[in-house]
């Protein structure tokens, strides 16, 4: 009986610990957001959003960073979506169980585990130097595209796997070719899942800093980039730059920029989750 009581006591204590730790995670999240909002909320105003960065903390704004982020995302989307979705379609619909397809699969899961800064080095060697694109938006977006490619591929595959086999059979039985079936049945049915994956991968790309630093995103860009060959800055880069400055004013500016970045990230994730739920309902 004594043993039994002891065991019960341990069990209950662990339960308490579990609740504590779980709430700890949420608590820390709350502390983080609270502190940043308190520090930076006052800083956010129209001037902040439309000013260029400055050597003076009070005058500094995130305008170029926001434009840079937008430009970068637009270009990244242009490269990553067709290639990622195309690769996903190939792997799910065309590739038979061969040595080649096994290598492809192992390779993709390996790439997903490569640190993002290594992608930066890749971009530096190939796009910046070898192709000669320099520290431009073009180099940055190509690098980011490669980084998020595994995410889009996996999401596409999962979405295609969920399309019932019976629909494909019906299409084939009516005399449709493989591509016709993919185009008219598989893609429309898997659209929601693919869209979710794309939004999530973009949300990740928006927050990336390290690889962009390596391929030349500049810390101080007091002008708006006009072509894809221009230098640029992005929001996380701006935050990094301000955080490392000693002046207190810059720390506040950084907090303000973080609020904007978090807002964008949470909204995108929210949209992705909304689409995922809508699509999963449709499947049932």
């Amino acid at each position: 009986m004594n043993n039994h009581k002891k065991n019960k006591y341990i069990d209950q204590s662990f339960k308490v610990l579990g609740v504590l730790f779980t709430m700890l995670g949420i608590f820390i999240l709350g502390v983080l957001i609270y502190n940043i909002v308190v520090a930076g909320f006052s800083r956010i105003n129209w001037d902040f959003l439309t000013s260029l960065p400055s050597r003076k903390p009070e005058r500094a704004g995130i305008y170029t960073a926001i434009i840079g982020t937008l430009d970068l995302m637009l270009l990244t989307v242009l490269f990553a979506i067709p290639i990622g979705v195309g690769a996903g379609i190939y792997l799910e619909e065309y590739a038979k169980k061969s040595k080649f397809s096994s290598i492809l699969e192992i390779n993709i899961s390996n790439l997903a585990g490569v640190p993002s800064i290594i992608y930066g080095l890749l971009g530096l060697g190939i796009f910046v130097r070898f192709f000669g694109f320099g520290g431009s938006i073009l180099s940055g977006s190509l690098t980011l595209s490669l980084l998020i490619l595994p995410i889009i591929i996996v999401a596409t595959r999962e979405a295609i796997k969920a399309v019932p086999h019976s629909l494909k059979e019906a299409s084939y039985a009516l005399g449709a070719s493989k591509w016709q079936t993919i185009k008219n049945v598989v893609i429309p049915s898997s659209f929601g899942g693919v869209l979710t994956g794309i939004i999530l991968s973009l949300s990740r790309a928006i927050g990336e800093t390290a690889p962009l630093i390596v391929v030349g995103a500049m810390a101080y860009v007091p002008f708006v980039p006009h072509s894809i060959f221009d230098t640029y800055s992005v929001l996380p880069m701006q935050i990094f730059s301000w955080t490392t400055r000693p002046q207190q004013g810059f720390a506040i500016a950084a907090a303000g920029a973080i609020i904007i970045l978090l807002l964008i990230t949470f909204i995108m994730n929210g949209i992705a989750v909304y689409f995922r739920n809508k699509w999963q309902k449709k499947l049932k």
Partner: protein
Amino acid sequence: MAKEIEITMEELKSKIKNTTTFEEDTSTSGGSRIEAKDVKVWYDDFNAIKGIDMKIKPNTITAFIGPSGCGKSTFLRLFNRMNDYVEGFRMEGKIKINGDSIYKKKVNVEELRKEIGMVFQKPNPFPKSIYENVAYGLKIQGIKDKKLIDGRVEKALRQADLWEEVKDNLKKSALALSGGQQQRLCIARTLAVQPSILLMDEPTSALDPISTAKIEELIHHLKEEYTIIIVTHNMQQASRISDYTAFFYLGELIEYDKTRKIFTNPEKKQTENYITGRFG
């Protein structure tokens, strides 16, 4: 007294013979002749079909019956090459439609499937509108003439006995229809392409009795224009609607004959055991 009965028996027999001879001479309008010669099928090492010969006359309804796993669905799918998509599938022997072998390398499978339509056990309409479902097969062929498509869609829906129920709602989603309606939609979808052969893999097993009856009647009318093969595990259904019946067991064709003979006086003991419910 005995002589009278004898003569009457003779008369009866010849009457039956005449009727059967009449049925044998069905004309060849619209349908196609299907022929299988020493056909064998493997899935990897598993020998699913063990050497089957069969000839199917045009404009007939043939039922494939047999216990689960006997190979009737596999055999059915040989005719529109749907087994091609199964891993490890391999076949030997010849399958001829109208005298042409369909497993030759130069055969265009997509063209083949426009001649041979298939209806599946579980209704599988596309998540599109009713109109788009029926028009799908036509659009696949590159047909763009809207008037032509509209005409074919209406004709197919009428043939499938669904037109009156949906004619005011063609843009509605196909998934909003009931199970029986969805299956008739799938039949219409197949008919719109104007095949000459219809393969039906247990088309009513997932449906309620009323929908089943509707579809059986529909199949009976379709016989005039199509050659139909229907796989069914419902023996009453087979004896109701088919002209010929083939009994499969463990990958072999045990018996194939006119339906009436199979169900009243089968040659093989196995057939009789299955019909009378001793196994299956």
